[in-house]
């Protein structure tokens, strides 16, 4: 049932990439528990605008949990404390009346802050550009049913492909590693016959790009899997390691 609660927000404000940031406290009264976390921030921003203050910048777009644009480190968890949930799908009914909520941007050397809660995740695109694809041009491909793929394999590839590229795995990792993100793509492609041809090469170039861009190493803490809004399994990291090693042996 809908009700209203009062919360205190401690939100990271930072004017620009090089500016010094700080936490600013805002009181929010009468927040509908049916509203989403981002809708609550919309209401706060409307209040700030009324007071002729600058609204808080944060990334968001589809608000359906699929585009991966929203971020936010809420009370120490990327996308908040709910499992398998993006920030846009987190609802205020998950918070208690009178609670203090701390909101920070993703913290990672590879994701510099642009403003307030907005970060630059362009590094993820660069990793995909390095090799996160099957090298086919438009046209001249075989019939869709020419290569049967077992349902089990297709489903597993689909699970890996569910990654929304939000960066929660990096934000959750004490090393700031992007292994789960890279593994999800490498694994999806390595499982499918279409992607198998380039599998080892792909693992090698994507991992090299990841290292170059300042992401940390994986020490198997499993924090990424626990915080991933799409529940991508770390078993994909094992597959990435296999592909990576086989590539190295071939060298």
């Amino acid at each position: 049932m809908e009700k209203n609660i009062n919360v205190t927000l401690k939100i990271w404000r930072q004017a620009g990439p090089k500016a010094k940031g700080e936490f600013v406290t805002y009181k929010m009264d009468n927040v509908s528990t049916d509203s989403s976390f981002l809708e609550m921030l919309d209401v706060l921003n409307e209040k700030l605008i009324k007071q002729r203050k600058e609204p808080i910048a944060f990334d968001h777009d589809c608000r359906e949990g699929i585009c991966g644009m929203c971020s936010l480190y809420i009370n120490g968890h990327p996308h908040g404390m709910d499992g398998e949930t993006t920030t846009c799908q987190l609802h205020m009914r998950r918070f208690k009346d009178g609670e203090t909520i701390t909101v920070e941007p993703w913290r990672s050397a590879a994701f510099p802050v642009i403003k307030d809660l907005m970060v630059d995740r362009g590094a993820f695109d660069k990793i995909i550009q390095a090799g996160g694809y099957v090298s086919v041009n438009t046209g001249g491909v075989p019939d869709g049913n020419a290569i049967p793929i077992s349902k089990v394999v297709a489903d597993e590839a689909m699970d890996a492909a569910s990654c929304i590229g939000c960066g929660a795995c990096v934000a959750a990792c004490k090393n700031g590693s992007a292994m789960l993100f890279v593994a999800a793509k490498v694994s999806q492609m390595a499982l499918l016959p279409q992607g198998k041809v380039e599998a080892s090469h792909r693992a090698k170039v994507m991992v090299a790009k990841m290292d170059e861009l300042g992401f940390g190493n994986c020490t198997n803490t499993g924090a990424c899997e626990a915080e991933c809004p799409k529940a991508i399994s770390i078993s994909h990291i094992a597959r990435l390691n296999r592909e990576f090693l086989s590539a190295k042996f071939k060298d």
Partner: protein
Amino acid sequence: MTKKQESTAVEGNKIDARIPEGPLAEKWSNYKAHQKLVNPANKRRLDIIVVGTGLAGASAAASLAELGFNVLNFCIQDSPRRAHSIAAQGGINAAKNYQNDGDSVYRLFYDTIKGGDYRAREANVYRLAEVSNNIIDQCVAQGVPFAREYGGLLDNRSFGGAQVSRTFYAKGQTGQQLLLGAYSALSRQIGKGAVKLYSRYEMLDVVVIDGRARGIIARNLVTGKVERFFAHAVVVGSGGYGNTFFLSTNAMASNGSAAIQMYKKGAYFANPAYAQIHPTCIPVHGEFQSKLTLMSESLRNDGRIWVPKKKEDAEAIRAGKKKPTDLKEEERDYYLERRYPAFGNLVPRDVASRAAKERCDAGFGVGNTGLAVYLDFSTAIERLGENTIRARYGNLFQMYDKIVDENPYKTPMMIYPAIHYTMGGIWVDYELQTSVKGLFCIGEANFSDHGANRLGASALMQGLADGYFVLPYTIQNYLADQIQVPRMSTDLPEFIEAEKAVHAKIEKIMKIQGDKSVDSIHRELGLIMWNFVGMGRNKAGLEQALEKIKEVRHEFWTRVYVPGVSGDLNVELEKALRVADFIEIGELMARDALMREESCGGHFREEYQTPDGEALRNDEEFSFASCWKFNGDGEEPTLLKEALDYEFIHRQQRNYKA
């Protein structure tokens, strides 16, 4: 026999879609056989701007770069992978006939034309159906993990408006997987340096030199800097304008500004009134609401839609005294199955949406607002078991649970129609070229293939058809004549003028310093649109809407408040620029809806309906695409007509009953 409509003559020329001669099934092959091509050495010297990175934009940018053109690709989000195509859930149609259930290119073409209520162009739709099969092959080759049968072959499901199973899907995330496929192809070209990507950039104008599109003005959303870009041709795939309604299923940044910019530079805006209201969305729940969430139409495969048969029961449910599960089978009205025995719960979207509105308006609606109907899975769960339903719709059920806090395995979902897709858009000819030379428009942003209503799983098909298989051919027919044109300086007067105009508009908005937030004005516009230009439209209401939109425009330009400065990251300024254009689109929609004195597809004029409440077309007078030509700010636009000649299909009243 209806009389033949004539297309309007503009400056001595008819509106000419330039449809190739010949039998329907041979037009596209003939076109390709005779079109002009650009040789590889010349391709390198030609620049193409592609605005947008959704299914249409990303597939076009990737394919053009593969061919050897030099591509500049603009993306409003931080990454091309976030374009709103990603949110499409249900699937993509193709005429593969893998199920051996009688599908064919012709049947897909026919269903699409009929679904669009005979207001689309035959030749374009036939081409769409023709290339649909190539899309599936392409996506499979890219590694898109489509759902498969145990034997390893591709699985299909059925969708509204069709009696065959031709929809390919990847769980409830088909749009995501297709977009990531296009994104991977695009990323490959970016990695090679063939595409230069500009992310967090927003197009603010198109630059026209000597009657040809030669570039764009775009704002870097991080620095606030306004920049100029040249290209030999400009392709816009900027999506639809559903957010005119404020509340829609579109993403927050989805907007119609690129369309308005093209319109103001001479491109016709066609059929603006054709907006699709999707029947299965989560109902509005509060004033703070920022957007509406769609539940895939695929749910109608197994879900049954109903409201209580008796008003007392509906009232008791609204008051919280009864639960839907308290009502026995005979106390429920499965109104779609009752009204449309042949298609039942799988009628097209416009029909399902209007039927829901009809029941709610009559007092049978549920939920605390009375603006909701049930989508019930109990029969399907009984028949197939909870696990099968979970496998098919698990992520959708979970999403519903998160938003509404109710478990759809135990109690029926509540749904209500919401604005979802816009069939109208920038007018394009057969080559996807607008009425401005060198300016092309693809995907949802154009008007071309869906007529007055789009069938489910056809948007993904059209976006990818345009980007992978149509534009990369047709644009060459234009560019073949441009190979002698050298790259132009962005210091030409036309570029400087366009940039100045953009600056002037931004500064005008910044200086207002009024007392209303951008969102508050946008909400007002949305409410007017929903109430008067929504599911049921009539003359008096539309005239009222036009008056009210004028007031909103005045309010915007005198009272809006945008904090901060223009030369920096400024989200409120971005929104303000978009809302200024939504107001223009809202007016065009109302104007178009008022002009079109008939009901067709998503456009329902209450004055024009059959005795049993179905849309009543008037082919005699309205068998045309309405093309609005801009005449200057504050001036009335001119209506031009592209006659829709049905040479190959016999038009009839759509019938989903028998």
